[in-house]
């Protein structure tokens, strides 16, 4: 694989990110409404107070070019600015606090969904037409069609409220004094279980269906017939010949899905009060906290560009037919 290809891809990625930074800024400022208006419902507020707030937030200068230039310059220096809502806190701090819960939730969720979804899809594709296929495919379709928040609320009602096996909200039990690290881990795990199940179930449906159709496609290939004719066992044919070829669309799908993390995060996190980027986005949107919103979407855009870059490069290794 040539280094020039890699450099070209990285160069493209950087240009994309640059454009995204500008677009990011412009889109949010185009939203009607201004953050200082949220302060306006104070019966005792004075016009001077609002003006002072606008000045402090740099909102009194014209959007283009002053605010835009200031924004791009600060991003170049790595300064994401200060939040309007969490007064005095830098955006980097606010994001750092909330990014790990979302990464844990969606990272683990994706992993579980990939393993289970791929296995389920492969098996149902292999045994196409059989009873397992009907049940598996049916379940996958239902899960794919059900929105995250509905899955979440059903799980909440059945397992947390009905059976009482898991807590209903949050990432930890606040104020809890743990007698051992195992107890603390157990607390985290019990809070993680339901949101994780929600994310995993939501994604399993999607991956399973794509995998199934991919396997069905691959099974029609001639090399599969050859392998069977050679007398190789079914399981080996599936694992060593069909699966590697069927995984290619999955790699693309996983990279694309990364872009929808925030959208999914919002619904799941709101249901379970999970302190991640989703709930942060909801708050920031309502309050027009531009710096935080810009920070979140910059983070997201960079991740998506990066993930697609990785997927691009990975294709070189996954599929020898793709030449640089």
């Amino acid at each position, binding site marked *: 694989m040539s280094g020039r290809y890699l450099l070209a891809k990285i160069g493209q990625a950087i240009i994309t990110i640059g454009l995204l930074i500008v677009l990011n800024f412009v889109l949010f400022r185009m939203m009607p409404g*201004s953050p200082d208006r949220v302060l306006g419902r104070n019966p*005792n507020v004075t016009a001077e107070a609002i003006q002072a707030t606008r000045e402090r937030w740099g909102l009194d200068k014209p959007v283009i070019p002053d605010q835009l230039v200031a924004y791009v310059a600060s991003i170049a220096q790595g300064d994401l600015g200060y939040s309007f*809502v969490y007064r005095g806190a830098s955006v980097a701090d606010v994001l750092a606090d909330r990014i790990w819960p979302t990464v844990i939730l969606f990272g683990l969720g994706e992993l579980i969904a990939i393993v289970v979804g791929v296995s389920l899809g492969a098996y149902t594709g292999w045994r196409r037409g059989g009873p397992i296929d009907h049940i598996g495919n049916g379940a996958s379709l239902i899960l794919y069609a059900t929105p995250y928040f509905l899955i979440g609320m059903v799980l909440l009602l059945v397992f947390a409220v009905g059976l009482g096996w898991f807590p*209903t909200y949050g990432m930890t039990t606040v*104020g809890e*004094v743990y007698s051992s690290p195992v107890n603390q881990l157990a607390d985290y795990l019990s809070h993680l279980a339901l949101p994780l199940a929600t994310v995993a179930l939501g994604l399993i449906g999607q991956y399973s269906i794509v995998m199934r159709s991919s396997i069905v496609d691959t099974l029609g290939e001639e090399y599969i017939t050859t392998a069977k004719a050679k007398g190789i066992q079914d399981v080996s044919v599936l694992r060593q010949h069909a699966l590697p070829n069927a995984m290619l669309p999955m790699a693309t799908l996983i990279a694309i899905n990364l872009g929808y993390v925030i959208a999914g995060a919002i619904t799941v996190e709101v249901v379970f009060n999970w302190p991640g980027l989703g709930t942060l986005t909801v708050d920031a949107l*309502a309050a027009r906290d531009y710096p935080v919103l810009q920070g979140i979407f910059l983070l997201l855009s960079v991740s998506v560009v990066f993930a697609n870059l990785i997927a691009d490069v990975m294709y070189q290794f996954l599929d020898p037919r793709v030449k640089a």
Partner: protein
Amino acid sequence: MRLPLRGRIAIVTASAGLVLALLLPAASATAADPLILRTGSTQTVSGLNPWQVVYVVDFEIMTLNYDTLVGFGPNVDPVPGFAESWTKSADGHTWTFKIRPGMKWSDGQPATSEDARWTIQYVLDAVKKGQTLGAGYLEPYLTAAGVTAVSAPDPQTLVVTTNLNNPLLLQSYVPILPAHIWSKIDPKVAATTYPNNAPVVGTGPYQVVEYKPGQFVRLQRNPYYWGQQGAEDQIVITTFKNDDTMVQALKTGELDYARDVPATQFDQLKSAGGPITAVEGVSNTFYELAFNCYNKPIPGGGASTLAVQDPAFRDALGYAIDKQDIVNKVFQGHAQVGSTQVTPFQAGWHVEPTDVRPFDIEMAKSKLDAAGYPLNASGQRLDKQQKPIVLRLSWPGDPSEAKAAQLIVAWFGQLGIKVNATASDEAKLGQQILPPEAGGKAQFDMFIWDWVGDPDPTSLLKVLTTKEIGASSDSLWSNADYDALYNKQLAETDDAARHQEVGQMQQLFYDQAPYHILYYPSQLDAYRTDHFGGWRNQPTANGTPLFQFGSFNYTYLTNAQAAVASPSASAPSASSAPSAEASQAVVSTPAPVASQAPAPGDTTSSNSSPLLLLGGLALVVIAVVGILVIRRGRASAEEE
């Protein structure tokens, strides 16, 4: 991967053993934990800096951290706070407060009148420079009382001088801050970006020790608190993004108190009974249908018709609003029909207007005709410029506002007035309604929004004055008589005279109708009585226990699970609060729940069963994977 069979079995056994080893200690009993009161609301905390308070939850945290000079008693009446007692001079312009001796800040430093003097002087300095402190919600309490100077002649005495003679100084919601900490902070940032990080230092009953922005606040008992100590060692106030989850958490026992329960859930909780008490408190909020009353032309903006400026037009529309219907349909009855801009909470000041408008579409039509707004041939109502009247209606996104708007569209439609209704949000709508004095174009005809009040009606009376156009006035209404009455009542020394003036303001407001007050939504809260007892409402007769004024109700709570569960806590040095009233206020007598586990921190016991479940699941998964791995190894061995 071609490990020999023995290797694979070894790995599987080892992982199963590891899981078992981890499980065993977790199944054992845990040590005694601090007793934690868990409350929840859907509001996001603005931060720990008291000058940045905006929402009710911010005020709640502020009064837990800090004392106010004068406390808020069971009926929001003045009781000892930071000050033990007070006297007023004959002319009412000099107040002398006796500061309780021996008080300490939560960091152990002595708390004296110097701290109170510093705090009030800090506000006065800002006011003199014309600055707004922080979010601007606190210093108006002192300016409304007319405070001009403050001094501390000795550590136990504080003298406050005012230029108005009213009792508002006793209701000032200004926290007394520790001078030894705050005087060292640059005044330019003290009220704005100073984070006031945990652990907060205050003289209140509990101080913040942990704060996660957007998530929760955890407060710990103040060991030096001068008043009664509540049973709870810690308080956790959690922000819920979804009020459904909040109610579910209350049901499972993970939450002790939920504020703002949705009306549909409220009825269910009330009928279910059991350990959950659903309480409906009187409202200190009104929701209004506001009109664009700006009486000067705005090029490129303003209302779509001059009709909305006409009080006769607005009055006629008032007959086409069935407020009782809104209360029934939108709140399932958990609200009161709206009338004046003084809420039911401010009971002493609310005066029902004479000639309340009944819901009568025919009367509305005839009043419109009489006022000069006839129907044209196609059934459209015309204004005095012969244009059909089409009104825009917006609201900042509250579902109750949306439903009320739908009903209004239908009613006004019957009058021949088309209403274009669009949902909006706070920031957008706030921007849209700005008048030229604030740099906007006032591009609206009507909107539905709300205002939240104080114990005193002054703040909500003020938003309708001419002076506030460009600041807090959103109706942009200007009426010289109303302004004159406002100024008169603010300086009024005689209570009866003030009452009369406030009554006149309400009548004038009702007749001129810059707003049609639609409803006063009840405060719907719910709490559990099996963890904590001793809940008291504020006000006693018709309030809710928490998220009102002051934080004394937190100090009356008792541990319902302790063997001795007697709720008869005596009020702390609240000389003005009759104790007979206080014992009536105990709304729930907790029956000692014998079946509950004795350990106060029983959240841990509910953790071990899912843990064991998870452990069991982990073992099953390992077993299944182990079998597959071993079988696969055998199969490929056979192949080769």
